[in-house]
Structure formats: structure tokens, C-alpha cells
């Protein structure tokens, strides 16, 4: 063909079909400015503008047709688009370059874009036209089903694929007893294999749907309206309503009639630029047969085609950079409360591919990963537990950092809680609240920037840890915008130069732009912690007061309504009845909420700032000390009851726990420190989940380090065995001081141990064998801490100057903050939550 390709000079673009892809095409034209230069005419068959067909079913759960609309208010007018709804194109005259609509109107075009989508395939069975037979494609279809269902009790869906299951879920939601009839031997035959189908079947049947697989539909019976179906196995199914969902076919009739090439099984043949055999005519979306020989029944590939064509029309020569050569067919079922996902080469079609399968028939879980002989992930099927879909789909085509056998295991059975974010490809979605990919995050420099530019991390916040791991450490490894040094370097500077002032550190060692300034919320507490662990005196004195996070500043933990909690130290979890009574009396007299913590002590909640001193005065008088629940410092040394009482115990674990807790109390560190001592190998104190854990043996103590509970649990590593009391304490002294010296800000020992070069072996070399010759110094630093320790609260309640800051209002010291309020719950108090969202009304 010699006709020149139409280009930006095109005067009139006619679009046939205003569905999802047609609308995306219009948006792309507008984005690229084509609407300024060309006349754009759209013919739509449906009575309403384009809407979100993918979420069609949400109409049954309350989404209105208007809410489903995909056309922003004013869009059509703003770009001068001529939209004719309810007037489908009837014929195309390619020689004259005109389109004739059903109304008889004729539109001349320079470029014609066909976006006619598909139609639902209805098998040619007798009775298919009876009243009560429906398809499932448009809002009008759903309105009709909804109305008819009010007079029906039973419904049947012909077809057990993705859409059929969605429709069946909808019928069930309308209150009908629902059947699914599927010709293939299993449900969702296109996506899942036999194993997955079996798991899926169990789950769907458990939901109360009746599934008939391996049978065809022979006839729909009834006089004028449906009353039942005859199936190919001779059985009869009574039903009042039938929905056909037996697949879709491209709407290519218009193209056929005007002589455009179509595929053997339908679909308008296009090249990689979505051009038909006539260069003036394009086809996009579900009606097109792409150059890879596929008709895509999903919306995302259609969008790609739309953008590619808009691109072609915007570029001067009609030759776009973008092309459409194929797309991912990954799918996830979004309804019915069943987790089903398939991605990549789900059926293991590639030569030599291997399946890794995990099944749990009882809970209806089936997971299969397809890998190539070299370990590359090719695809997979997940039924019943599609948790890993978000991680696995983007990994397709890569060798996962963890063996496939482990990837299919459910969490808790040795499965990794999560793959490291470094392992993910750029298209992996990191923030699911705002659908932000890794590729959108990594070019950015800081968390505030990420939040501002992508909104990632501003929803539920669960992605923040991952985001931080993806960000450069302020570009150059520096602590923050104020310091180019790491925490470790700052520690060394402060130690070597005997610097004990934050301002001096900032003005002499900060980034040039930060010198003379006020620092920031990141480096202030970090430096405060360094200065404190180097023996800085009371943390509320002098300059240090300004550095502490609010918790340290008030020696208590802030709560969501601005009140504070109080955690007295209960070393080793051992407490006398008298002291228990004091806690009870204090809590009762001040109306505090009390709770036993996970750390073997008692937390008192709901104190106002101005109540902290009186409460603590009573606690101090009764012999209590600060529990440092607010500090990045030692929390608790948990104990088990041990040899004294327990028939298995081999050492006095309670005494050791108390000794250790008293030795390290108040020690400021990069992050909090937790410890435990168990009296025998049964490990009732869970020592191996602590930063340092001690387990009694017949010969002494075993020391474990680097354990962690919480969100990323880690079992502690054995550092040394069969230690005497003295050896144990000396080793812990060294270990802790080495950690404090070399860890990053907010880095628990578990993370530090994994990160530090040489890992456990290096730490062993340094603290057990003194390979760096620093052990004497480490021990001296710890001795300094132990002898300088004073209880922060005892010192505070005796000092009027320090007490002066514990007021709600600087200008009304006696007035309690009226916004801190409580309501009763289960015989105690709870915060009355502050009212949000009244901002506007208040103004």
C-alpha cells in the first residue's frame, strides 16, 4: 500500500467506541496536545460515557454508575471533543474515508481508531433467548440482572472462569442460590492448573456455591422464561436465571465489513504500532489482534496500545517511539473473598521448566512456582494465599534471592517474612496504599521527599521501613542533612576529641550549611545518645535538655492523646508484694490505666505532664526507679524463675537477671536493648530473642547475642559457652560498648550484627579475642557508666529547676490541659480520642 501515513497534520480523528481504552486514548491525545490541532469525534454505542468496566461488579456493593464513570467532569468540553453517545458506527467506507452512524450521520476522517472492545460469547444452545438469560458486560446488563433477580430464587452461571466466578459472587450477593457450570474439568482453567483448581473448588464450595465441572450446557429450558438447564451428563438443573460468561470475542464486525484483515479466531490484525492493514485505521484494546498473535482481554495492555497510538499521532511522521508488542497476562481475582492469582508462565509451558508446589488441602492453599533449570522464576499460581503476589510478579524473569522452595512455604514454616527490597525489580510496588513502585522511590533522596513527590508512606505507614532501606543514606552515608558523618564516626570524634557539646559538634563537624543552625530531629537525639553513653550527666541538664526526643525530655512515653505513661523498673520481673501494693495505690489515686507489659513489668498510662512529678515522687519514695521505657537504652532483663524454685533449673537465673539489669540500667545506646536470662535450656525467658540472652548450663552460662522479637524476628547467635559469672559480665560489657560504638542510629543489635563487616565472627574476634586491642577501653567505658549511674527520676523530683518544665502551660502552671480527657472502659480509663477532620468548621 502506498497511501502516506497520516500524521499530526491529521485534521479529523474519529474514534469508534467509548469504552475504557477509547477514553484512555482521548486522555492521551489531550496530554500530548493533539486535541488542540485536530478535530476529534467519538461514536459510542452505550448510552453513557466510558466507565470502569473492571470494577463493574462493585455496582452490586453500592458503587453508583456515576462513581464508575471514567470521564472527569468537563473533560470532553475542555478539549473540544465531539462525543455522540447511543449512536454506534454502522459502516466504514475506507475509500471515501467516512464512517456512517446508525442515526444516518456521516463523519469524514483522516484517521480512524477502532476501540470497539469485545462482546460476551453466548454458546448457541436452544433457549438462550428466553427471558431470564443475561450476559455480564455493561452497566445495563447489571441493572437488568438486578431487576430480574428480585423475582428469582436460583441462578446459574455458565462458565467458571475469572469473570464467571465474579458474576457468581454477584448473584450470591443478590440472595440467589447459585450454581456454576464449567465445561473444563476445573474452575479458572485458563489461569490455574489441576492442583490449583482443586484447592479453589474446595474454597468456593465452602462459600456455599454449587460447582458443576466437566459438564456442558445443552439447553436452557422454559416456556417464556427460564426454568432450568439440561446439562451434557443428562442431569437437569432447576434455575430461574442464567448468566452466560463463556468468554468474550473481539468486536471486529465493522472491520470485517469494510475489508480490514481479521484473525482466524477474530480480532482486527494490527502491527506493533497498532495500525491495521490500512495505515489510516488503527485498532486498540480488546478488539485488536496484537502483533504477537494475541487478543488481550485485560485493560492494562489496552491502555498501552492507546498511548502508543496517541504517540504516533502526536509525532510528526506518524512513527512513534512507543510500540505495543505484548503484555503481561498476570491476574488476581478481586471478588468472592478467594485469593487467586496467576502470573507469567503459570502452566509451565517453557521447555525444561520445573514446578515447585506447596499444597495444604485443609486450608485450601495451593501455591506453584514455575522455574527454569537455572532458577529463573517464570511464573506461578497462588490459590488461597496470594500474599506474595506483589513480590513475586515483579520478580518474574529474575532469579529470586531465595530458593523457590522457601518462597512457597507459608510464613512461620521457614518462609522468609519478606524478601529484601534490594532484590526487587524497579516495577515492584513498595507502597500499596498509593501504588508506588520501587523505581519511583529510588531516584529520590530522602523520606520527606518521597512522601511529598509520591505520597508513598503517607497511608498506613507499613512501607516506611522498606522505603528507608531503599534510600541512599542522605546521599553520602551521612547521618542527616546536618552531618556528613555516620553515627559511628560522630561517636569516634566525640570520644577522641572529648567533645561533650552538640553545638560544638555541629559547628565544627557538621555540614557547612548546617553549622550555626539548629540541627534537626534526627541528629539531635542521636548525638544526645552518644553524649549520654560517653558519660554526659543528667540528660535534662544544660544543652542536653534541648536534644532529647520528647519521651526523654519528660522521662516518660508520650501517648496518642498527649498524655504520658509511667514504667517503673522491676529488675528481672521480681517484685515484693509491698511494692506491688504501692503501684496499685499510686495508680488508683491518680486514676491511671494499668497493664502488665510484655517485658515483665507494669505500665501506668494516662498521666498529664503536670502529674508526672507527684506520681514519681511517690514511686521514688517507695524505692522505685525509672524503667527507661522512654529511652534508647536498656529496657528489661527478663528472667525465668530458675533453679530456686523450678525443678529443672541449673542456675539462679533471677539473681543474674537482676544483676545484669542493675548493671546496664540507664545505658544510652543506638537503639533500645533487651535481655533475658533462662535457668535452663528449656528457655522460658526467651533469651534467644533478645539483644543479649543468657542461658544457664550445668557449667555456667551461655551468652547469645543479636536476637530480636518484633516485626523482624531473629534468633540470637551463640557468642560464648560455659562462662563464669565474671566472664559473662565482662563479655557483655565489651559486647554492648562495641555495639554502642559502631552501630548506626536506631540499629538494633540484630541488624548491626548482620550489617557489620565480618558479622558474628568479627564481633567474636573483637570482644572475645580482643583482636583490635580495645577491650580494656570498652570495659573502662562500661565501668564509667556503672559508677556514674544515677536514677533520673530521683534526681528530677528533688530539683525544682528540672521540675519547672513539667507544666501543661508555661503561663498557667496550675492549669491542667483540658484537651487531655478520658472515658471509662472495662473498669479503667482510656483516652477520649481527639476529634480529627473538624478543621474547616473550626475556622
Amino acid at each position, binding site marked *: 500500500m502506498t497511501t502516506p501515513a497520516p500524521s499530526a497534520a491529521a485534521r479529523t480523528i474519529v474514534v469508534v467506541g467509548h469504552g475504557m481504552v477509547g477514553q484512555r486514548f482521548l486522555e492521551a491525545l489531550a496530554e500530548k496536545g493533539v486535541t488542540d490541532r485536530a478535530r476529534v469525534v467519538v461514536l459510542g454505542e452505550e448510552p453513557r460515557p466510558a466507565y470502569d468496566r473492571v470494577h463493574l461488579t462493585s455496582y452490586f456493593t453500592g458503587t453508583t454508575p456515576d462513581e464508575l464513570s471514567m470521564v472527569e467532569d468537563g473533560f470532553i468540553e475542555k478539549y473540544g471533543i465531539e462525543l455522540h453517545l447511543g449512536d454506534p458506527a454502522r459502516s466504514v467506507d475506507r475509500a471515501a474515508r467516512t464512517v456512517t452512524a446508525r442515526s444516518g450521520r456521516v463523519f469524514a476522517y483522516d484517521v480512524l481508531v477502532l476501540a470497539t472492545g469485545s462482546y460476551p460469547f453466548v454458546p448457541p444452545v436452544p433457549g438462550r433467548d428466553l427471558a431470564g438469560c443475561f450476559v455480564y458486560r455493561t452497566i445495563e446488563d447489571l441493572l437488568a440482572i438486578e431487576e430480574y433477580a428480585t423475582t428469582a430464587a436460583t441462578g446459574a452461571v455458565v462458565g467458571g472462569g475469572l469473570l464467571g466466578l465474579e458474576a457468581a459472587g454477584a448473584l450470591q450477593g443478590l440472595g440467589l442460590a447459585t450454581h456454576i457450570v464449567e465445561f473444563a474439568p476445573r474452575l479458572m482453567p485458563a489461569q490455574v492448573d489441576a492442583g490449583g483448581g482443586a484447592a479453589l473448588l474446595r474454597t468456593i464450595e465452602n462459600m456455599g456455591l454449587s460447582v458443576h465441572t466437566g459438564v456442558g450446557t445443552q439447553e436452557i429450558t422454559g416456556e417464556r422464561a427460564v426454568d432450568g438447564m439440561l446439562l451434557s451428563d443428562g442431569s437437569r438443573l432447576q434455575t430461574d436465571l442464567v448468566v452466560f460468561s463463556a468468554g468474550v470475542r473481539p468486536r471486529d464486525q465493522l472491520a470485517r465489513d469494510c475489508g480490514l484483515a481479521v484473525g482466524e479466531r477474530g480480532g482486527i490484525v494490527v502491527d506493533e504500532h497498532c495500525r491495521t492493514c490500512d495505515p489510516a485505521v488503527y485498532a486498540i484494546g480488546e478488539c485488536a489482534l496484537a502483533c504477537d498473535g494475541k487478543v488481550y482481554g485485560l485493560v492494562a495492555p489496552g491502555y498501552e496500545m492507546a498511548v502508543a497510538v496517541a504517540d504516533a499521532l502526536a509525532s510528526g511522521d506518524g512513527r512513534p517511539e512507543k510500540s505495543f508488542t505484548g503484555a503481561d497476562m498476570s491476574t488476581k481475582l478481586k471478588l468472592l473473598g478467594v485469593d487467586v492469582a496467576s502470573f507469567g508462565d503459570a502452566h509451565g509451558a517453557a521447555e525444561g521448566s520445573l514446578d515447585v508446589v506447596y499444597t495444604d488441602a485443609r486450608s485450601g492453599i495451593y501455591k506453584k512456582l514455575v522455574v527454569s533449570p537455572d532458577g529463573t522464576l517464570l511464573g506461578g499460581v497462588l490459590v488461597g494465599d496470594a500474599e506474595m503476589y506483589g513480590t513475586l510478579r515483579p520478580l518474574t524473569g529474575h532469579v529470586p534471592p531465595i530458593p523457590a522452595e522457601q518462597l512457597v512455604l507459608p510464613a512461620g514454616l521457614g518462609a522468609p517474612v519478606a524478601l529484601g527490597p534490594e532484590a526487587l525489580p524497579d516495577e515492584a510496588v513498595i507502597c500499596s496504599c498509593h501504588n508506588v513502585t520501587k523505581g519511583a522511590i529510588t531516584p529520590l533522596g530522602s523520606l*520527606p521527599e518521597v*512522601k*511529598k513527590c509520591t505520597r508513598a508512606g*503517607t497511608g498506613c505507614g507499613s512501607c516506611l521501613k522498606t522505603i528507608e532501606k531503599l534510600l541512599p543514606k542522605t546521599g553520602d552515608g551521612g547521618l542527616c*542533612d*546536618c552531618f556528613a558523618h555516620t553515627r559511628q564516626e560522630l561517636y569516634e570524634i566525640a570520644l577522641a576529641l572529648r567533645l561533650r557539646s552538640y*553545638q560544638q559538634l555541629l559547628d565544627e563537624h557538621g555540614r557547612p*550549611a*548546617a553549622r550555626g*543552625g*539548629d*540541627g*534537626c*530531629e534526627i541528629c*539531635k*537525639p542521636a548525638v544526645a545518645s552518644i553524649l549520654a553513653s560517653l558519660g554526659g550527666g543528667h540528660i535534662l541538664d544544660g544543652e542536653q*535538655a*534541648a*536534644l532529647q*526526643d*520528647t*519521651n526523654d*525530655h*519528660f522521662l516518660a512515653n*508520650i501517648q*496518642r*492523646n*498527649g498524655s504520658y505513661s509511667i514504667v517503673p523498673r522491676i529488675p528481672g520481673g521480681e517484685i515484693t508484694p509491698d511494692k506491688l501494693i504501692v503501684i496499685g495505690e499510686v495508680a488508683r489515686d491518680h486514676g491511671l490505666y494499668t497493664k502488665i507489659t510484655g517485658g515483665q513489668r507494669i505500665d501506668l498510662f494516662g498521666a498529664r505532664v503536670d502529674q508526672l512529678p507527684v506520681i514519681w515522687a511517690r514511686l521514688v519514695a517507695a524505692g522505685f526507679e525509672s524503667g527507661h521505657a522512654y529511652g534508647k537504652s536498656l529496657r528489661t532483663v527478663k528472667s525465668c524463675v530458675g533453679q530456686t524454685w523450678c525443678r529443672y533449673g541449673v542456675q539462679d537465673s533471677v539473681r543474674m537477671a537482676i544483676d545484669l539489669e542493675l548493671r546496664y540500667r540507664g545505658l544510652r545506646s543506638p537503639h533500645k536493648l533487651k535481655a533475658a536470662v533462662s535457668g535452663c535450656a528449656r528457655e522460658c525467658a526467651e533469651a534467644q530473642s533478645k539483644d543479649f540472652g543468657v542461658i544457664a548450663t550445668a557449667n555456667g552460662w551461655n551468652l547469645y547475642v543479636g536476637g530480636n522479637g518484633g516485626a523482624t524476628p531473629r534468633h540470637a547467635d551463640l557468642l560464648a559457652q560455659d562462662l563464669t559469672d565474671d566472664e559473662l559480665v565482662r563479655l557483655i560489657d565489651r559486647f554492648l560498648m562495641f555495639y554502642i560504638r559502631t552501630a548506626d542510629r536506631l540499629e538494633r543489635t540484630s541488624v548491626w550484627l548482620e550489617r557489620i563487616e565480618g558479622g558474628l565472627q568479627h564481633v567474636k574476634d573483637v570482644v572475645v579475642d580482643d583482636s583490635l586491642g580495645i577491650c580494656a577501653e570498652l570495659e573502662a567505658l562500661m565501668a564509667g557508666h556503672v559508677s556514674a549511674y544515677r536514677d533520673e527520676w530521683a534526681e528530677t523530683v528533688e530539683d525544682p529547676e528540672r521540675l*519547672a*518544665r513539667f507544666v*501543661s*502551660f*508555661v*503561663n*498557667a502552671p496550675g*492549669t491542667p*490541659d*483540658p*484537651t*487531655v480527657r478520658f472515658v471509662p472502659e472495662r473498669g479503667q480509663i482510656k483516652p477520649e*480520642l*481527639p*476529634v*480529627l477532620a473538624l*478543621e474547616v468548621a473550626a475556622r
Partner: protein
Amino acid sequence: MNDDKTNGSIRLRLDDGWFEVCERARLVPGRGVAALLPDGRQAAVFTDRTGRAYAIDNRDPFTGAYVMSRGLLGSAHGRAFVASPLLKQRFDLETGECLDDEEVSVQAYLTDHSK
């Protein structure tokens, strides 16, 4: 800077004139205090290391709690900010704008240091 004119106290500009909060000596540079205003509202008042005073609404718009005065003060590009003690969003102390979410801001008060 006109510290001399303030007789050692910090004042805020309210609709009907200047309101005296407290002696400047009550503030630790880099930290804040809460002040109760005549109409029952609360202001968070800060001084930076040069002694300059700032004041913004004490209510944290992200949580609804009256806690802004307990946040840490910092500076970036020569402008002072406070980080909320609860969820750590930062607010410019002169304008009240949230640096981590353009759509959010709190009221900022003029102090007699910020003229």
C-alpha cells in the same frame, strides 16, 4: 532582632493586640512550651539557638493532640521547623506549613522577634 524592647519576655500577636506569654528565660533554646491563650486556644512557643522566638498552634493536625510544643526544633536551609513528637511531621515555624504534606498547615503567630 529587637530583644531589648521586649523586657525579657515573649509576646504573641493575637487579633486584638500583643499577648505576653512568659519570661524568655523560661524557654530552653531548641525546645518549646505550651501557652494558654485568652480564648482557650493553645500556642506552642519556641526559641532557636539565636534566641529568636516562634509560635504556632499547639494542636497537631495529624493526630488532633495538643502536643506540638513538645516536638524537637531544627533548621533546614536557614528556616526553623518543629517535628511533631507523635508522628514526626515537620512544620515551618514561621509559616506553619507542613514540610511533609503540602495540604496541611497550622496557624502561625507573629512574635515580637519575628517582625
